[in-house]
């Protein structure tokens, strides 16, 4: 049953998501022009190129923002519609557990949210990469990075460990994001009935404006953990082997991740309880 739910959740979410994703990708194209202009000017502050670069940059920024917002929202629109819209009759008369329906929503939400950021990254990266000026920037970055670390440990090992640990950490942060928004929608849907949509928009707006603290806080927590650890061992940085350093940082991140996972489970549990016991579809 979960697979069937996933099939439909993916299909329906994709219908709106692809619009945002395409917008994001397309708006990264002007970035190549921007890079070209920026790297070709000797004195960026006065030349004509700058005058052109600034609006182009805004175009990129605007397009990316709209695209990302649409992509991100597509997931929540699907959640709301399926549980609280007209379709709710259909949804809750299916021979499927409510927790299964929720799990399916969560899994597809994670996929599309992460993929939204992948698209963002790919768009920006290829735009930077594809411009001549961008190549120079990239080479400079690569040289600086590798010269610093080449002397410490094999680059591949660093890349692998950092990617895995940070990847797990980011997944937990994304999950907090998704689950807290799910909980907001569920709560408003159950207790605000007619005005649920209004309440959700208000709640999302507030959270969005205050820098999405549900993302910022855990991220900050993660970085604080890293800084705290590196700060503590600052004096012994040289004497501590590079492998040990990486492992210590990794461990700190994992601890934060475990805490985040506990919070995620609580958020998911709350949403499920509301769906199971308190939801009166009218």
């Amino acid at each position, binding site marked *: *049953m979960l697979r*069937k739910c996933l*099939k*439909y959740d993916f299909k329906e979410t994709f219908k709106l998501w692809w619009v945002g994703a395409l917008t994001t990708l397309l708006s990264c194209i002007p970035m190549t022009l921007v890079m070209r202009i920026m790297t070709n000017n000797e004195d960026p502050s006065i030349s004509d190129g700058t005058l052109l670069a600034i609006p182009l940059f805004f175009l990129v920024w605007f397009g990316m923002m709209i695209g990302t917002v649409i992509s991100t929202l597509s997931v929540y629109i699907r959640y709301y*519609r399926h549980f609280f*819209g*007209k*379709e*709710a*009759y*259909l949804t*809750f*008369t*299916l*021979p*499927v*557990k*409510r927790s299964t329906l929720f799990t399916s929503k969560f899994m597809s939400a994670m996929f599309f949210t992460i993929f939204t950021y992948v698209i963002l990254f790919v768009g920006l990266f290829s735009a930077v990469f594809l411009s001549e000026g961008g190549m120079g920037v990239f080479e400079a970055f690569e040289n600086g990075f590798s010269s610093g670390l080449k002397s410490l440990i094999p680059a591949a090992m660093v890349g692998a460990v950092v990617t895995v640990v940070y990847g797990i950490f980011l997944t937990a942060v994304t999950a907090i994001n998704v689950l807290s928004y799910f909980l907001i929608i569920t709560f408003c849907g159950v207790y605000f009935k007619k005005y649920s949509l209004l309440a959700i928009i208000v709640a999302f707006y507030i959270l969005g404006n205050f820098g999405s603290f549900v993302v910022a806080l855990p991220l900050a927590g993660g970085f604080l953990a890293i800084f705290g650890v590196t700060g503590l061992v600052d004096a012994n940085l040289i004497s501590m082997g590079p492998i040990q350093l990486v492992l210590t940082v990794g461990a700190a991140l994992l601890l934060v991740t475990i805490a985040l996972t506990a919070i995620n489970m609580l958020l998911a549990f709350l949403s499920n309880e509301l769906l199971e*016991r308190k*939801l*009166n*579809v009218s």
Partner: protein
Amino acid sequence: MTEQILNTEPILVCKDLCKSYKKNKPVLKDFNFCVEPGKITGLLGPNGCGKSTLLKLISGILVPDSGEILLCGQKRSEKSNALISYLPDSPYFSDGQKVENMLTYFADFYPDFDKTLALNMLGDLGIDPKARFRTLSKGTKEKAQLVLVMSRKARLYMLDEPLGGVDPAARDYILRTIIGNYSPDSAVIITTHLIADVEPALDDFAFMNYGGEILLSGNADETREEQGKSLDTLFREVFAC
């Protein structure tokens, strides 16, 4: 020759059901109801007496405050939904969907869904499977919804006002479909205001008042014989303002 019913266990049992939307305003109070297989039962009552609420409780859309619902002897759960085919009183389709997509959706989640039958019925009613729901009139949407519900081989069919927004020719078709779908293993509950249209098709009936109070119930034909009048006339007398 009467067909042997192997299983005479009631399909639906409601025990002391209570449900209220606001405090001190119960929609259903200690409601008890029972439906046997092979029967078409009419649940007749004024607007707001709790008929729709009852069907929503049985189908799992609402959760009762207290009391028990048993489907084929089992406590109501999401598994019961596989046995129930429920038609709510208003359409629930998302506008952008195509009719045939709904057929696929039903076929996916309900093993007892007969896609061929559904397509035939849509053809009979002149509904294009490739049409999107937003292009259909309200009456057509309701017909489409009924097709989906009746194309399943469920144990319990619950039809909330199936004849409401539909023209008389379609009403005949709908009634004939309900009758034609009859099986001694399954039961049908119909709620309606249009008692006169539905009367001849009913086995049993129940007059339901506010709070879920059952004023009169029994076999339709026997009651007509005893009372010497139609259920429609009887209803007007019982519920006279």
